[in-house]
């Protein structure tokens, strides 16, 4: 009769705490008593009593551990630890391929994960170094139509909201307006264009940017003062001790001296505000008087709230101030523009700005970032790490057959299962640690490339941040456990009797190993599809016909170029035979609005050109005619529009239609004289917008396009520079090539392409080394079988087929999961582009081909080696 058992937990507890030399008798007594109680009082009572008895044994004599007559190895006895370590190192050294696969895989995975943690940490730490956080907010506004539909959400403000809200809302203790501009800076005889930021005097009290020298309170008080950054000071003066020195900036038509009142320390790299030159923000009284300024938005305004202010209440007060102050101009707008919507002001926490999608850090603020980027990068890093862990699990379990004997012996001489688990986990920790160290070296090697791709300036020294170190430590522990726990559990469970008689085999079909291989290849195929699709889309974007010719076109920036100056420049440049033609232009999508058909309003890109512009770009005029010097009235009465404009305006016969501008100075009317073919004047991730071309004489030009003969770049550029400097000695000179500029629009896609490609290569690489390991082991295990098959007449091809089919099947199964997922994900991504490719079946076929061929090469090589061995050798073993 099998006797009833006392409660397991109590039994275990006793076993754990009781001194080993006392255990037997105590257990015996308790058991004896338990069985008597069982007969007398029944199961429940007996069990309860047993538990009580066990607990009452928690007393010093039972806990005291004396040298016992039955020595029992405990987990952390130094002798055993030394033994574990020795065995671990011997094992790693003996199986070099296995160790290398695991260490390389894990180190790549860990490096990827650590890199992304570094990246993410940097992303979320943006702008958090300001002492006034979290009280700093940015003023944002949204425009709702009369029906209450959101029409426009923007983080920008005009000059009004800052001072008016500060005055009218008591919770706002301070404000600062921040604006970016360019100014011409004279250094010796050189003139260069310098990015300049304007800010209110309160700048240094709102934000924490320490000054190396100068008084932060008064640095921006004087209108002719300037604060420069450490770097600019070093570059310009060769020293940071420059307080009181002057810099010459262009004001109107002459250079004025600005006194340096402060030198700012290098701004942290995780700052959205990075200034080189900071000047006081000056508002003339007449500007402040214009109520219109509520509606002209062009810069960022930040406010500080009192520490426990209610943001909702402050927003409500802000809107009350706005409505009271702007009443008049709202009415005026309504009359003039039929404008019936309303504007609502709100606050955005400063620290939310960096990763905000709707209200990005732009307009003088830098490094705006898309959080999706973090998610996707983290996803890829996790993929890689997961695949590396899978390799570890698969290989360790598969290889464990070779260690079955060791496990058997350990068990027979009294090794407990827990001890074995700890031994194997320890081995995985040792491996992970090696991988971890190698990973850090990999990060150091990969950082420059990664920084370039992710647009960051991260350094290895950031790794020693306490939070990150804690993060890495956790990552290390998790990786070790993730990869080591399952194998440890399986290995420690082997039956010693079977292993010692060499009759042991992994039971079952090993579904876990198979599904893990499928998972690996699913991830790898997914990334291959993603990188192929991104590559194709990038290719499409950069090679699509833009509707104009951008070859051999040099752009020079010349702001505020007057008509007469343009004429002069054209004449001078025409003297060179390499220069085909010159066309000035100024324009873009500035929210210019005009009335069409008497009432409808249309907003469009407003381009000021001359008659050479369209021919130079080879943009055809579909209907009507181009501007022409033969019609003197063109500059005052005529405009050209593009096809989209005609479509939006709903014109059947566009020629002769009226476009009605209601400028605040005085309204103007123009007739359409021609329709220009649609062309992509913006990047291809935007749809073609309506465009209007004018020759209006009073509009200055901003850029000059110069078409040169092919292969004459050097000579032409020299001539152009000489001419520009001769004609405009006080202007900075710089040039660009239009086709290069156009490619720059797709920098982000180019980076994505690179990142995905790296991710795909790494995942496929790690998956394949894992597969390689598995194939090696499976070939080894089947050495004898292969020998017999060969002796019986099997061909090499037959054997290779036999060995590789299993793996190739798994790779094929992975497509079932990878294809739909990738198709869906890429379809979603492509939705961002109005002009996009269709994902063709070819992408999937190519992916299948790539995956299968790489897998076949990996497995096939091993199989071939196994198939080629002389059966005499393999059969002689044993």
């Amino acid at each position, binding site marked *: 009769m099998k*006797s009833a058992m006392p409660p397991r937990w109590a039994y275990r507890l006793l076993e754990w705490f009781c001194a080993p030399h*006392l255990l*037997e*008798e*105590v*257990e*015996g*007594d*308790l*058991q*004896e*008593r338990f*069985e008597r109680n069982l007969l007398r009082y029944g199961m429940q009572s007996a069990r309860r009593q047993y538990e*009580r*008895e066990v607990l*009452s*044994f928690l*007393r010093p*004599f*039972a806990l005291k551990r004396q040298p016992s007559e039955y020595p029992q190895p405990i987990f952390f006895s130094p002798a055993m630890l030394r033994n574990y370590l020795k065995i671990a190192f011997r094992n790693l050294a003996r199986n070099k391929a296995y160790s290398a696969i695991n260490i390389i895989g894990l180190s790549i995975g860990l490096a990827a994960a650590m890199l992304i943690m570094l990246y993410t940490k940097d992303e979320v730490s943006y702008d958090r170094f300001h002492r006034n956080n979290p009280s700093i907010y940015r003023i944002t506004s949204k425009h709702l139509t009369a029906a209450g539909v959101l029409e426009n959400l923007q983080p920008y403000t005009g000059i009004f909201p800052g001072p008016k809200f500060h005055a009218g809302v008591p919770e706002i203790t301070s404000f600062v307006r921040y604006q970016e501009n360019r100014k011409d800076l004279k250094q010796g005889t050189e003139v260069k264009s310098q990015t300049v930021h304007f800010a209110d005097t309160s700048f240094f009290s709102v934000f924490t940017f320490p000054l190396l020298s100068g008084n932060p309170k008064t640095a921006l008080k004087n209108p002719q003062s300037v604060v420069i950054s450490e770097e600019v000071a070093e570059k310009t003066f060769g020293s940071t001790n420059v307080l009181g020195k002057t810099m010459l900036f262009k004001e109107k038509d002459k250079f004025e001296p600005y006194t340096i009142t402060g030198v700012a320390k290098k701004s942290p790299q995780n700052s959205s505000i990075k200034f080189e030159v900071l000047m006081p923000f000056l508002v003339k009284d007449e500007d402040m008087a214009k109520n219109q300024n509520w509606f002209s938005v062009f810069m960022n305004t930040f406010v500080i709230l009192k520490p426990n202010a209610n943001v909702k209440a402050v927003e409500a007060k802000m809107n009350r101030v706005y409505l009271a102050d702007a009443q008049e101009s709202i009415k005026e707008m309504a009359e003039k523009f039929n404008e019936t919507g309303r504007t609502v002001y709100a606050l955005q926490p400063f620290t939310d700005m960096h990763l905000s999608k709707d209200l990005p850090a732009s307009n003088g603020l830098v490094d705006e970032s898309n959080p999706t980027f973090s998610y996707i990068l983290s996803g890829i890093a996790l993929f890689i790490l997961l695949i590396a862990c899978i390799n570890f699990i698969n290989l360790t379990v598969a290889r464990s057959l070779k260690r079955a004997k060791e496990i058997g012996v350990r068990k027979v001489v009294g090794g407990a299962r827990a001890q074995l688990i700890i031994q194997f986990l320890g081995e995985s920790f040792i491996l992970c640690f090696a991988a971890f160290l190698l990973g850090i070296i990999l990060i150091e090697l990969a950082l420059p490339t990664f920084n370039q791709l992710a647009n960051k300036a991260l350094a290895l020294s950031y790794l020693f941040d306490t939070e990150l170190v804690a993060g890495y430590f956790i990552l290390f522990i998790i990786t070790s456990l993730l990869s080591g726990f399952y194998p440890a559990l399986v290995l420690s469970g082997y039956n010693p009797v079977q292993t010692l008689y060499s009759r042991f085999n992994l039971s079952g079909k090993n579904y876990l190993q198979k599904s893990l291989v499928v998972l690996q290849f699913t991830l790898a195929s997914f990334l291959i599809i993603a990188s192929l699709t991104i590559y194709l889309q990038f290719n499409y974007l950069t090679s699509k016909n833009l509707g104009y010719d951008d070859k051999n076109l040099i752009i020079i920036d010349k702001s505020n170029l007057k008509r007469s100056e343009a004429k002069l420049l054209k004449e001078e440049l025409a003297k060179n035979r390499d220069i085909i033609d010159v066309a000035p232009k100024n324009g873009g999508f500035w929210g210019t609005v005009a009335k069409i058909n008497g009432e409808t309003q249309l907003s469009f890109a407003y381009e000021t050109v001359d008659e050479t512009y369209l021919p130079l770009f080879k943009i055809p005029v579909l209907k009507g005619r181009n501007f022409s010097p033969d019609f003197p009235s063109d500059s005052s009465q005529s405009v050209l529009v593009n096809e989209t404009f005609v479509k939006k305006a709903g014109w059947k016969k566009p020629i002769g239609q009226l476009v009605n501008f209601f400028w605040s100075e005085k309204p103007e009317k123009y007739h359409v004289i021609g329709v220009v073919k649609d062309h992509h004047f913006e990047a291809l991730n935007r749809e073609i917008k309506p465009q209007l071309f004018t020759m209006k004489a009073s509009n200055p030009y901003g850029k000059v396009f110069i078409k040169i003969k092919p292969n004459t770049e050097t000579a032409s550029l020299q001539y152009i520079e000489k001419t520009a400097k001769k004609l405009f000695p006080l202007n900075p000179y710089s040039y660009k090539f239009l086709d290069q500029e156009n490619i720059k629009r797709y920098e982000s896609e180019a980076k994505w392409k690179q990142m995905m490609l790296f991710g795909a290569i790494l995942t496929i690489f790690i998956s394949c080394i894992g597969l390689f390991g598995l194939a090696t082991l499976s070939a080894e295990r089947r050495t004898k079988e292969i020998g017999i098959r060969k002796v019986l007449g099997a061909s090499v091809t037959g054997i290779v087929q036999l060995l590789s089919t299993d793996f190739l099947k798994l790779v094929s199964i992975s497509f079932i999961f990878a294809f739909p997922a990738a198709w869906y994900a890429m379809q979603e991504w492509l939705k961002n582009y109005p002009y996009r490719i269709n994902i063709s079946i070819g992408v999937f076929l190519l992916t299948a081909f790539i995956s299968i061929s790489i897998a076949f090469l990996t497995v096939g090589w091993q199989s071939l080696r196994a198939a080629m061995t002389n059966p005499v050798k393999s059969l002689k073993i044993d």
Partner: protein
Amino acid sequence: MRRSYLGEFEEVVLLTVAVLGEGAYGVAITDELDRQTGRSVSISAVHAALHRLEEKGMLSSRMGDATAERGGRRKRLFTVTVLGSRTLHDIRATRDQLWGSIAPNALPAISI
């Protein structure tokens, strides 16, 4: 002679070991204590006392044979040592002497 002091519980346990003779081990001692004194004590208390007595040298022990009713575990059998025996005798002598010295009717009468 250095006198060894015994606690009251220890003394009772030691006596019980003496009573049981050959078969003195944990559970048996507990049961005997229960029967003789009506005291229900936990096994752990008895084990603790036995352990201390052995440390003091009043008891010696050896492992007995395994029995099925204890799940194959052996008993630890205790015997009283010479020291144990002398201590018990000493205690008894002291007590007897004390009893002998009590004047008649000095103790309040109790009805039996």
